[in-house]
């Protein structure tokens, strides 16, 4: 166990505000942190949060919309986002598209609303489109902030993010050598969702200093899905003398982007997202997703994959049957479970996870 003090979202918001920075509440999944930072805007991501009372959102959204979107809207309607200066809604799926549209047309928040359309598919035209989309947002932010950061400033922020992505990868690769529970590991990793880069970097560096030479002698699992919430799932895995060795999650690994090539900052930011790890919301092919998950298994010698799905998340649902089949053919066992981020982990799910871990342990 490491003694790392990670500030809360509230503390970060208050501190950054006191420094004169603006705060952006950012809904899932992909966006360019660097673009906002160049405008002295601190992004603070809104992934739910879990265990939110969603009654207020029920006045706008039907019951068949996922709990991430329900909670995200309720969180706003309850007034928890009153402190932020702008709201960012990336176009990740039909439900988030709807959320952005409801914000704009009906809820009409007092804050500036920024929407981002993310192209599907991985190609040159899509990089060009996203670069133009980011230029449009740059103009919107310029009007809001009253200044235009130059290319040098943008590149500086891009380089910072690229450095952090490299460090995050190192953190993942050291996972088996770190004296951290899965909950602690993901608490550190997910603090990137709201921490300024220097703070996040120093926490990662501190944690990495404690990496030992001996590997964890536990059963490694790859966790795939949107987010590990409620975090009890991580405890259930650890209680079985197993651990999350690496993940294929939207809030974590799917957003560890490679370095861009272009010297144009907008193109470079676009390249990073478009060419990033496969993600169902980007419509990547089954082969791309399979190869990626397999590479994670190979890298960590994980013994199995758990698809942990948020109920009503269509992008994830469509991939499960074929991915499960492909993994099976490659002798990689997998389990599909689903949950609502606002509900405690049901006993039935806990039993299934335990049985799965026992099974893969016996088979390995």
């Amino acid at each position, binding site marked *: 166990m490491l003694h790392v003090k990670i500030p809360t979202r509230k503390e970060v918001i208050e501190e950054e505000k006191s420094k004169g920075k603006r705060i952006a509440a950012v809904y899932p999944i992909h966006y360019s942190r660097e673009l906002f930072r160049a405008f002295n805007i601190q992004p603070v991501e809104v992934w739910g949060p879990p265990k939110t009372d969603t009654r207020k959102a029920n*006045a*706008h*959204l*039907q019951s*068949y*919309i996922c709990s991430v979107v329900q909670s995200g809207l309720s969180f706003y309607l309850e007034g928890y986002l009153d402190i932020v200066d702008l709201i960012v809604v990336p*176009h990740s*799926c*039909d*439900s988030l*598209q*709807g*959320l*952005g*549209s*409801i914000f*704009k*047309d*009906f809820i009409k928040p007092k804050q500036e609303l920024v*929407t981002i*359309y993310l*192209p*599907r*598919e991985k190609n040159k*035209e*899509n990089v*060009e*489109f996203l670069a*133009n*989309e980011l230029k*449009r947002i740059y103009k919107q932010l310029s009007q809001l902030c009253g200044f235009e950061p130059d290319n040098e400033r943008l590149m500086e922020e891009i380089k910072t993010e690229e450095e952090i992505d490299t460090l995050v990868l190192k953190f993942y690769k050291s996972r088996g050598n770190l004296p951290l529970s899965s909950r602690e590991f993901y608490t550190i990793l997910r603090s990137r969702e709201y921490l300024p880069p220097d703070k996040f970097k120093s926490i990662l560096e501190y944690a990495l200093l404690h990496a030992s030479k001996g590997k964890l002698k536990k059963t490694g699992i790859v966790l795939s899905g949107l987010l590990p919430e409620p975090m009890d799932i991580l405890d259930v895995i650890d209680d079985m003398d197993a651990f999350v060795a690496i993940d294929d999650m939207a809030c974590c690994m799917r957003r560890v982007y490679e370095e861009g090539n272009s010297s144009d900052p907008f193109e470079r930011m676009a390249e990073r997202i478009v060419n990033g790890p496969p993600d*169902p*919301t980007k*419509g990547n*092919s*089954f082969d791309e997703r399979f190869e990626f998950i397999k590479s994670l298994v190979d890298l960590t010698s994980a013994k199995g994959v758990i698809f942990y799905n948020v*109920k*009503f998340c*269509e*992008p994830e*649902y*469509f*991939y*499960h*049957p*074929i991915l*499960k089949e492909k993994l099976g053919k490659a002798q990689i066992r997998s389990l*599909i479970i689903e949950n609502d981020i606002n509900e405690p982990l049901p006993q039935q799910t806990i039993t299934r996870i335990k049985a799965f871990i026992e099974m893969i342990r016996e088979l390995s």
Partner: protein
Amino acid sequence: MDVKDKIKYIFSYKIAGKLLIELNTKKAFKNFKPPKNWRTDILAPPLRTGVYTKEIIAKHYLEGRYVSGVKPVAWVTSGAPIEILKALGFYILYPENHGALCGARKVALEISEEAEKKGYSIDICSYARTDIGATLSKKTPVGKLPKPDLLLCCTNICQTVLYWYRVLAEYYKVPLIVIDTPFVYDEAKKHDIEYVKKQLEASIEVSEKVAGKSLSFSKLKEVVRLSKMAAELWLEIMNANKNKPAPISVFDQFIHMAPIVEKRGDPETVDFYSKMLDEIRERIKNGIGAVKNERKRVLWDNLPIWYKIRFLSEFLAENGVSVVASTYTNAWGELAPMMDIERPIESMAKTYVYPILNRGTGHKLKTMETMVKEFDLDGAILHSDRSCKPYSVGQMDQRLKLLNELGVAALLLEADHNDPRAFADEQIKSRLKAFMEMMD
């Protein structure tokens, strides 16, 4: 091209099949009478020209049975820009229409369960489940579906189609063209249109390769011209319902929209809708309404509930309620003026970005408000469709606006367009009764 396939195609479809279908149509047209159980006490007889809807669809699926190896086959999403494929001579199949047909014939559940057995969640779109189920089990009420040589998926109706077509591409191992259309919150930006245009241009090369021939731009212009003409006629048919009583109901439109979705760009479709328009004008002249005692006029928002069309149509008609306008059927006509025959690719890029499903919730509300005024409506039924999130999200706010700002009775009716498990007759009836009371 396989000679055996070609001979089979010519004999079974071109000669015998078509002839038989046409003879049946002639007979049905000549001896036209409503089906035995048709509620003539509350409804006008079905449109006589409706026999041609059956003919067009029957021919389409019959051709599909024998077309493999004769023409290239493309499976496409309902809002996809098919004009290029049409000009290249593709046989085009719309899995969503096939899904709707399965729904209307009440076999969608059985077919969907084939997909569910393979692990596809009950919470994914019921069209997708029907289609994947049909793909996995080969079950279909139309005999046989041709295997695709190409898949064309356009995200202007939802993102779901992207994942769905990924499944199809994986299963059939054929090229997948994705036309990604940025969502329009207000107005489409220049770079949005440019992005779609580039994708359309890039799609030509892939389509030509599969078709084994080059695209003729004069043929493309002709297809665009026919497509535009059919859409304009369809729009005119829908606008005819501004008359009182409304000559056809939206439930009729649901049935007769199949050709505008499935066969736009064909001369037969233009002829068909011209004939239908003539019959509708005749009805207007004679004061015939789709609902005999048209007391209230309402709007339908979202997809039809395919397996309950007759049930809903009769229950509402019994109470003098005529459903006269729909945001859904309107979607296949409202963009017709944007098509420019002289600049087909540019105008397609723009047109295919603007379907109602690719636009904001505020735009849909405006569309409904306009319809309420132009069609002089008393109420709106908003089908909250579990299977169609982009259409359904926003309806709760839209309903309140219609109710509070326009003073129009508005009902949110939760169901599913193709999954009967989400529909309870008695519950729906009591919801509709309460809605009708609101209008009185």
